């Protein structure tokens, strides 16, 4: 009898949970729909200038035709390729630099002011110099994507290295471990969660770097389409590119989130 009421209470709790989830979802969807509807109506009735602010129907049409004739696919591919590469290089390089800083306390002391300056500096301002140095190809753009996340990754990972409980090292040192062994066995694996959490931040940063890079030089990519649309006053194209960037950035974020969950489950 008692277990029956327990079960009943549990069922109640579950349906309550489901209901709450549904309500939240309905609100989310209605905000999206009303935003799009309002935009469409405002544009149709000339409350806003359709030339400047376009309209959802035009954007969708444009995306469909551009994907249909294949011209959009190359732009998307180029931007995604650059972003993923910039993201990977920035993250991995940051972790490597942090490791070298950890390997020598003196080196890290020497580097400290330079790191502070480089971190404070707006990296996109380096854009023109990178282009002059590396040319106007993919290389500059990928560098932009990487450089924007590398310093912050270095700083975050390095400080995480230093926050590892020294007693783990004490255990290893009592076995006679060298500094490298301490790093490999304790410091690096203990910092893994911190490294993974920088991934999420870096996804966002890499998009910034790549889009700015494309603004500056490229002949292809979503950033290029935005600038091009702006120059020829085709704001439907600008908006369509923005929509695509939003979609792909969200997808990439979700993928990284999945990888993060998987890595944490299998390493900690």
């Amino acid at each position, binding site marked *: 009898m008692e277990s029956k009421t327990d079960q009943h209470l549990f069922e109640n709790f579950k349906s309550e949970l489901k209901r709450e989830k549904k309500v939240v979802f309905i609100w989310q969807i209605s905000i999206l729909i009303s935003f799009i509807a309002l935009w469409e109506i405002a544009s149709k009735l000339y409350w806003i200038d359709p030339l400047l602010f376009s309209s959802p129907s035009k954007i969708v049409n444009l995306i469909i035709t551009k994907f249909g004739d294949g011209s959009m696919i190359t732009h998307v591919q180029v931007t995604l390729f650059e972003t993923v590469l910039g993201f990977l290089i920035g993250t991995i390089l940051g972790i490597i630099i942090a490791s070298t800083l950890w390997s020598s306390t003196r080196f890290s002391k020497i580097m400290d002011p330079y790191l502070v300056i480089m971190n404070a500096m707006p990296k996109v301002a380096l854009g023109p110099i990178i282009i002059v140095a590396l040319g106007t190809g993919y290389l500059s753009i990928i560098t932009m994507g990487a450089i924007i996340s590398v310093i912050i990754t270095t700083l975050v990972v390095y400080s995480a290295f230093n926050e590892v*409980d020294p*007693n*783990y090292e*004490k*255990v*290893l*040192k*009592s*076995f*006679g*471990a060298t500094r490298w*062994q301490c790093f490999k*066995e*304790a410091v690096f*694996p*203990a910092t*893994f969660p911190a490294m993974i959490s920088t991934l999420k931040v870096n996804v966002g940063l890499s998009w910034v770097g790549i889009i700015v890079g494309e603004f500056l030089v490229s002949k292809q990519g979503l950033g290029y389409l935005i600038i091009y649309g702006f120059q020829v006053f085709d704001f439907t194209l600008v908006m369509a590119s923005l929509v695509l960037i939003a979609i792909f950035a969200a997808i990439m974020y979700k993928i990284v989130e999945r990888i993060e969950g998987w890595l944490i489950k299998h*390493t*900690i």
Partner: protein
Amino acid sequence: MSFLTLDHVSHHYFSKSGYTKALDNISLSIKEGEFIALLGPSGCGKSTILSIIAGIMKQTAGKVLLQDKTISDSDLAIGYMLQQDYLFPWKTIIDNVMLGPKICKTNSVKTKEKAMDLLDEVGLCDVADAYPSSLSGGMRQRVALVRTLINDPKVLLLDEPFSALDYQTKLKLEDLVSQLLKTYYKTTILVTHDIGEAIAMSDRIYIMDANPGSIAKVFEVPLELRNETPFLVRRHPKYQLIFDKVWEELDKKAQEGGALK
């Protein structure tokens, strides 16, 4: 003949604003197979002594000799067990235990067998592939003990290894550790602030003084108590006698300290 000797060892901690003397002129000698306890208030440098013997820190003055060789020259392994288990959460139990052999590059099928045997001895061979997070505090501390023993250390340093455990677990583990160390004839230094534990487990008790850390008094534990298991020592009629003596000594110290303040 002395197995481990501390000869007028002093240690200073330096910082920008000055220095503190953590250890002052510590001399003691331990025979092979002996179990001694360092007992004293917190901050009396007990853990510093262990770190120096383990070779993690270098003393600022004096000599530490293991079989007439300095610690850095000796190739005898030293086992160090900390207050908390410090098992690596990302490694399985067996990988945690195998850490010592891995560091010393003596990793082999044989050492792995030995690890399993030791785990079996502490009743944990069925969790070898589990992760530390799924074990209780007592089990984790037993794993830490096995990890300490795997390299076959001649000297074992125990830094309040039972203080983070609940009372029952602690008593059981004391018995287990005591029996294991006797079987393998290990020389052991136990750091503790628990008078009962010191009496129950050790052959000799060094009472320490704080600021700077120094040895205030030495108590020999009566022979009748040495061969009993720690649990039974606590019921022995002589236990209370020596407990009172140690208590008196510590109390005197505490009052002196109070008067100084």
